């Protein structure tokens, strides 16, 4: 038992020291959605710790009190079928906890699936984030520019990411702005985020997508609206236009650094925005475009091999 306790102590010391150094990314939110999620995480850690401690305390109590070596020789354990009161408690209390968390989960789900409350009413900045093996393409239709592997966003304005993929399922994740969501080939998913603070952040694909997955990261920078506007202006003045040929070249599997273009690929290769079973009237048109996209990615896989 002594060894066990000293090891536990050592372990907790290690954990506290390590966690004390730097705030963990997910628990160091820079936007309202990440803040909501961090709150849920802290709340659940707190409640769950209490449960774990109760279980451990009861276990230790039982082990200390009813160990064979500590008991009188003639002690014979009783036959106990069960007890309705005890069983009601061990059913009832967890049910109450689950009820509480059910309410929490419903409220927070609706929060993270909508425009952040404090920025409601503002016109969101829509950014199309699409992935190809192994990079991210960010199209800003409002500003008519496109970047690869880096993302600049204005603070204090709701951001609406439209996610899709030119290949395997990927997952768009900027931990400090909020949780992730899948980008897939046959539908567009929407992720509502916003940045409260300026600063640099890590963004990545969190869903395994093959050989280049580990490096499939992007750089995120949140800046004031004024700085953002300056950057857009600068891009418009200096960057090359994105041509279809150039874009198809980019879709080929491989790695690239950060790239900047004027115009977006949405003009010649729109997002697969027909939801299955939805009443999209342009379905046929979109399907044609999809065929086109996959034709090119097929080709690229072939080239790669």
């Amino acid at each position: 038992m002594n060894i066990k306790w000293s090891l536990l102590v050592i372990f907790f010391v290690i954990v506290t020291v390590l966690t004390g150094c730097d705030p963990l990314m997910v628990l160091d939110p820079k936007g309202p959605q990440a803040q909501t999620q961090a709150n849920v995480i802290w709340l659940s850690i707190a409640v769950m710790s209490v449960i774990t401690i109760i279980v451990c305390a009861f276990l230790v109590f039982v082990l200390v009190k009813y160990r064979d070596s500590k008991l009188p020789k003639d002690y014979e354990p009783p036959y106990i079928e069960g007890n309705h009161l005890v069983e009601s408690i061990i059913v009832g209390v967890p049910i109450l906890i689950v009820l509480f968390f059910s309410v929490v989960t419903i409220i927070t789900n609706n929060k993270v699936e909508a425009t952040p409350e404090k920025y409601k009413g503002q016109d969101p900045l829509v950014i199309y984030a699409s992935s190809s093996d192994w990079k991210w393409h960010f199209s800003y239709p409002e500003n008519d520019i496109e970047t690869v592997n880096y993302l600049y966003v204005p603070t204090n304005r709701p951001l609406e990411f439209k996610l899709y993929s030119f290949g395997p399922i990927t997952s768009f994740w900027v931990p400090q702005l909020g949780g992730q969501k899948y980008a897939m080939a046959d539908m567009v998913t929407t992720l509502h985020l916003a940045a409260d603070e300026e600063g640099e952040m890590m963004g990545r694909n969190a869903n395994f997508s093959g050989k280049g997955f580990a490096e499939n990261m992007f750089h995120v920078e949140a800046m004031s609206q004024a700085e953002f506007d300056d950057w857009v202006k600068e891009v418009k003045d200096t960057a090359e236009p994105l041509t279809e040929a150039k874009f198809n070249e980019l879709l080929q599997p491989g790695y690239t650094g950060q790239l900047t273009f004027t115009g977006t690929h949405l003009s010649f290769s729109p997002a697969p925005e027909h939801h299955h079973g939805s009443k999209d009237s342009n379905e046929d048109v979109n399907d044609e475009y999809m065929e086109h996209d996959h034709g090119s990615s097929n080709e690229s896989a072939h080239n790669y091999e």
Partner: protein
Amino acid sequence: MGYFAKFAVPHPSPAIYASMIAIVVTVFLIIFGLTYFKKWIYLWSEWITTVDHKKIGTMYLIAALLMLFRGGVDALMMRAQTAVPDNKLLDSQHYNEVFSAHGVIMIIFMAMPYIMAFMNIVVPLQIGARDVAFPRLNAVSFWLFFMGAMLFNISFVIGGSPDAGWTSYFPLADNEFSPSVGTNYYMIAIQIAGIGTLMTGINFITTILRMRAPGMTLMRMPMFTWSAFVTSIIIIFAFPVLTIALLMGTMDRLFETKFFAMTDGGMDMLWANLFWVWGHPEVYILILPAFGIFSEIIPTFSRRNIYGYKSMVISMVVISLYSFFVWTHHFFTMGQTAYVNSIFSITTMVIAVPTGIKIFNWLLTMWKGRIRFTVPMLYSIAFIPLFTIGGVTGVMLAMSAADYQYHNTMFLVAHFHNVIIPGVAFAVLAGSTYYWPKIFGFMLNERIGKWAFWFLTIGFSLAFFPMYITGLDGQARRMYTYSEASGYGLLNFVSFIGAAFMAISFVLIVYTIYYSIRHSPRHVGGDPWDARSLEWATHNPVPEYNFAIIPQVDSREPFWDAKYKRYELFKGDYKKIHMPNNSGVPFIMSALFFVFGFALVFSMWILAVISLIGIFICMAHRSFEIDHGHYISVEEIKETEVKMGGNHK
């Protein structure tokens, strides 16, 4: 040479060449050994053709230990690669192959057969039966599993390993992004093993419903039998989904169908759904029998009856039901609405209630008991707090808003290892120690076993608790490396040390077995642990017919009553016993399945057709065969009983 080029490994490395040599040497040594010691006939007549549930269970056990070694080596390679930032030990492709193999092997080819081993060995004994309902089908189940496992395992030396993860999500798993035959192996090997599992489910439901000893009502069944029963029901409902999903995946890969394709109306999300409609119940297929094992061990070493028998049974049934209503929590991030996520979030959290009941019932079983710290009991005790942590982190993951942050991270990896290792791995290790005398007739050494236990528990804590932290710090799972600037280095190194501890523990477990074979006293009697349920009412090791006289049951713990309350368990005289005959057909048919699978992997159609015809001939043979089994005479029974030192009459 052109024809054989397709069998070459697409991404060879020194480790793979070394494995090839090791495999060839091992096969040679086995063949040489069998020939030298003249054991071919023994092997064929006693093991390969056997239909005895105990021998089949033993073979499951050995296969599971071998697969534990393979999966464990994979795990060590992964932890070694990620021990330090920017490590060059494995490249990305190899790392992907290693973690894919690790997942498949540990779940499908280690945990499943380990659970099947205990179901086979223990269930017929616990219900006082002479074998399972369909002994030959049982042999088919084992050999299909075994051939599936072998087919999967040769992938890394012939043609290349699967590299799309154990979940094998499409479109990544499609030909376009996974051009090697590795994913063909995945689809077909799991299919073959899965058919075997499905048959096991059918077999055990029938066995438990139809073959219980007189007087054993459903509510008098031992806990492990209950868990095997509930698990079999889940198997029957869940595995057909996997069968169909794998079939669709195979068609997509071999015949260019478009079920999960990105074009022509295919839907990659469909695979994820089908996979987890099977995959989540699969988790309970593993954990419920593990709960059953703990529910046998804890009462025995607390010298008390299980607390709240009825609530234990009800909670298992509720868990089995709910296991089918939660699959979407594996992809909260797939773009469903908040409404859908909320529903699955709540159904998932609800599962914590019956699981919590079980935890408290185990605690209350120990309460007022007389606790002996044997190796099986140590595992069961450590299971409770560790599994609780795994469980509560599961509730955390169930809250879908927060799951957006945990999903695909090391936090998730920590969580599911935190339930599977203390849950399933501890259970099967506890179970192997507990039932070892039942299977082999001697005890495992307790002292070395305790060392192994401490190494495993400490190693587990060191390996997996840091992952909760790195996950919250943004480390995604399945990354073959990370930069130094990320700051994940230190904690990943701690994980590596933990993995090394776990490896030492595995070595110690093997050493315990070796040491005990050499030094443990034989003739431990029928009941070395002072246990409570029927499987201990017969000899160790168990004679072919299990019980010379079928026991009569009139309570939940008939054997305990027989020992301490003068209850008469075996009434009547010896009668001749009807037993099934051995058969080589299950092995031959499964071997043909192996050939069929191999042919499909490499699209060798002629070979595939020939072996398929062979499979049908084996089935036809069974239909026309007249086999009434054989009888063991009263003299033989008497002789065996005297030799075993038992005298039930």
